[in-house]
């Protein structure tokens, strides 16, 4: 019974973690793309500070995205 519960919980962990990872990474990346496009539009409109803010937000989103991927790979590589 304990074994069944442990197996079920392991599978449930796979389900929610993969859905969460896919959605979060995709949203962050989409946010970064939008941020960079907005930044280039703002630069063309000579709105430097706003463009810089958008670039910074996009960079942060990309870095979080990258960190999530690296963290996921570390988790997969762990022995237990």
């Amino acid at each position, binding site marked *: 019974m304990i*074994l*069944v519960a442990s*197996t079920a919980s*392991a*599978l449930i*962990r*796979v*389900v929610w*973690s*993969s*859905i969460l*990872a*896919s*959605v979060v*990474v*995709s*949203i962050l*990346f*989409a*946010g*970064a*793309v*939008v941020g*960079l*496009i*907005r930044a*280039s539009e703002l630069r063309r409109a000579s709105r430097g500070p706003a463009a810089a803010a958008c670039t910074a937000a996009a960079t942060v989103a990309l870095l979080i995205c990258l960190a999530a*991927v690296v963290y*996921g*790979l570390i*988790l*997969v*590589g*762990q022995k237990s």
Partner: protein
Amino acid sequence: MSVDVILVIVVVTALAFDFTNGFHDTANVVATSISTRAIGPRRAIAIASALNFVGAFISLKVADTVARGFVETHAVTSTVVYAGLLGAISWNLMTWYVGLPSSSSHALIGGLVGSAIAAKGWSAASGSGILDKLVIPAVVAPLVAFTAAWLAVVCVYRIVRSVRPGGVSRGFKLGQVVSGGLLALSHGTNDAQKTMGLITLALVASGKLSASNFHVPLWVVISAATAISLGTFTGGWRIIKTLGTKIISMDPAQGFVAQTAGAAVILAASRGGYPLSTTHVITGGIAGAGAGKRLSAVRWGVAGEIVTAWVLTLPCAAGVAAVVYAVVHLFGNGDAGPIFMSVVLVIALIAVYVKARGTRAHGPTPHAEASQA
């Protein structure tokens, strides 16, 4: 001495199986990136090949499951592993020839279970292991990939709808270089380990490794990684020709999401030690990304094919492996049986290849049918 000959045959056959796995799955791994023109075919295949190799080193949990999760280790001999492997290859060959869908991963495990049962009876198979680690994940994983991709695509489209499409497309094409790489890495992580598990099981069965101190030797990891990587590289050059015409109508955002969802599911499953059909997972991701844009875009016939593969592959591969074991056993416990069956297999392979070459054209990849968004 006779055990060593069988062991060598098992290792060579397992690595050949691994090579064909990479060869066959190249299309699944790189098709999305190539079809959206995120990356050129040659570069995509080279990157996928390298990352398949790297991925094989990340985790060994799937190998452990394959070696110890489905059959009782004490019931396994080198001949059992050999018959299981040959059963899986024969089943794949038959299904390929008659055009039935199949899963190499399920065939491999079905073959192992079938030959173990033929050798030692029903007690040799671990029913709970098969159900918990193979059957349920096989059903759940493609559905999870579908759901994840569908949810993610809906969110992504909402986020990017207010900006110009050209910029979005360029951004996601760049993202696909990374997501495609991640998918190749995850493929190597899950698929190469199945072969590692099987070879390790054969080493334990032949007494080369202690069952109490179970571990996957480094040479097994390196050789399995090399075989799947070379298979990916070789298979890629063949599909370049067909990809140009049988391309998937996906935009880069869908491609990115499908690859990310596929990679996430395969990596999470690898962490849990679940050997999945990576083809089914990737197809689920593609279909989900298509459904997120337009539900009618999904070719539901592909889902039917996957269900057919779920139902047929495991018992049929087990049955074929049991027959192979019975035939090998007729020759006694020496090398004669495996050598005879290997010769028969090679002849069958050549015959099928020659016949198929003249009569059949290669069909579209599962990707190509999964979505026409």
